[in-house]
């Protein structure tokens, strides 16, 4: 076990960048989960399924338009919108009747939805995995410090801050954002100042699910699109939301950074046990800050 010689500074930086691009996906997905949890108080286990559907939709739309660059960009926009549409139907048809139920009930309900989504995906796309190549300008690698670094991951590195900025603007500068923050603090009072909470909840739910779909669409070219991708991501997303602080969107950013980086650096340090690192960090964070790093309201 002589790993000190195998770690070079360049290798470390490269793993760091890989970790950051993974963080982008984790952040996008878990910020959506966190939003829904914080404002609607729904622990949406089916969030990961929407991510999976986003990835499959991205694949199908992009092949429909000839699998070229235009197809891909169209798919990255349309797939999350498709997921948003599905979630709108779910909210108006199902969730809006359940807001007053206790958490356990909601948990079971979304769990059932997750199973339904999985079967639906199996029926629509079959059980084979799919793969999608990135658009032409993002294919291949660039050399960073003498090490090859995939262009698509660089693109993800750029996409993360853009989404974070967009979310910041939405939450702090728009009416719906301010109302959502208020609803996370005191839902009844939002009704009592004359705001129809029901449409606020619908919009927040749709925005949160859109983010799941966006994460799925963006991740599609980097990995195989498979049946099982829903439960890996939902585990990770829940852990991120928990260490970041339940319901805090910026906590999701912090959690995603911690989770993504320890994951990728761990691979470098101790490849056989790399999977342990992010979970170990979660445990350590929770020992010192049982309620997560940031406060639940923001």
């Amino acid at each position, binding site marked *: 076990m002589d790993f000190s010689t195998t770690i070079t500074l360049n290798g470390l930086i490269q793993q760091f960048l890989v970790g950051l691009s993974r963080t982008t996906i984790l952040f996008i997905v878990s910020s959506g989960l966190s939003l829904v949890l914080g404002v609607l108080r729904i622990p949406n286990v089916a969030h990961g399924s929407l991510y999976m559907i986003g990835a499959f939709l991205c694949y199908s739309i992009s092949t429909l338009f000839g699998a070229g660059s235009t197809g891909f960009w169209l798919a990255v926009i349309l797939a999350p919108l498709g997921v948003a549409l599905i979630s709108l139907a779910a909210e108006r048809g199902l969730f809006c009747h359940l807001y007053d139920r206790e958490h356990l009930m909601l948990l079971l309900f979304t769990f059932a939805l997750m199973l339904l989504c999985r079967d639906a995906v199996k029926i629509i796309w079959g059980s084979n995995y799919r793969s999608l190549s990135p658009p032409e300008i993002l294919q291949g690698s660039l050399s960073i410090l003498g090490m090859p670094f995939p262009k698509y991951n660089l693109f993800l590195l750029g996409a993360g801050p853009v989404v974070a900025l967009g979310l910041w603007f939405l939450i702090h500068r728009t009416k719906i954002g301010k109302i959502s923050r208020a609803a996370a603090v005191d839902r009844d009072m*939002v*009704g009592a100042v*004359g705001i129809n909470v029901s449409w606020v909840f619908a919009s927040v739910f749709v925005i949160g699910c859109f983010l799941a779909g966006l994460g799925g669409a963006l991740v599609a070219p980097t990995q195989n699109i498979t049946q099982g991708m829903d439960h890996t991501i939902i585990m990770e997303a829940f852990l991120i939301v928990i260490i970041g602080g339940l319901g805090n969107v910026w906590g999701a950013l912090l959690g995603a950074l911690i989770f993504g980086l320890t994951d990728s650096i761990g691979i470098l340090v101790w490849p056989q046990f790399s999977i342990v690192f992010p979970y170990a960090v979660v445990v350590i964070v929770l020992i010192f800050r049982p309620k997560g790093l940031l406060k639940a309201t923001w």
Partner: protein
Amino acid sequence: MLRIESLCAYYRGNQALKGVSLEVQQGEVVSLIGSNGAGKTTLLNCISGLHTDRTGEIWFREKDVSRAQPHDLVMLGLVQVPENRQLFGPMTVEENLQMGAYLRSGKMTGVMLRKEVDRLLERFPALRSRRKQRAGTLSGGEQQMVAIGRGLMSDPRLLMLDEPSLGLAPMIVQEIFSIIKQLQREGCTILLVEQNALGALSLSDRAYLLETGRLTMSGQSSTLIADKRIRRAYLGHDLET
């Protein structure tokens, strides 16, 4: 303006209001006094649609609003400033005030909204320098002002204040009461719930006394203030006085 007929309210089978009927006319300040647990907050929550386990009729501006949702009632102009203020703590004073105006903001631009906040802050000089401060970090008195301000932002026809003096130092209580007096002079219709019976009775036109879920006395505030039983039980006077 507001009329309530034999209102009963329940908490899991426990009856908190036992047939309450009362009325508030346009331009009046009516106070509702009573000790802890009499059901004052419950009554306000019933009126504003927050407490739904109830029977009886509620009429507001000639409409039967017994089944109306809280936000619909605010649209009609019925606004409650809750006990304990219930501000949106992590948000700034300005954002809290804006929340009160969002129901009208369909017709309002951002600039108009800011002007509206400016206009409101003229009323509360103490808040002027605290626009960007988080509401949760304000003093109790300042929080109460923001809570009243948030209520006023939705341009109410009837303002229901639930114990605005709760937990405040005597000097601050005076300040809050003078704000209420100012609103009264401007012609606001107010339903004021208070445990501070003397303060409430000395500024209101009429008053009701609520005891364990029943209205046991009502009339002109000046009459109630002179009443022996009220003086003994609620104004802290001894038998001799």
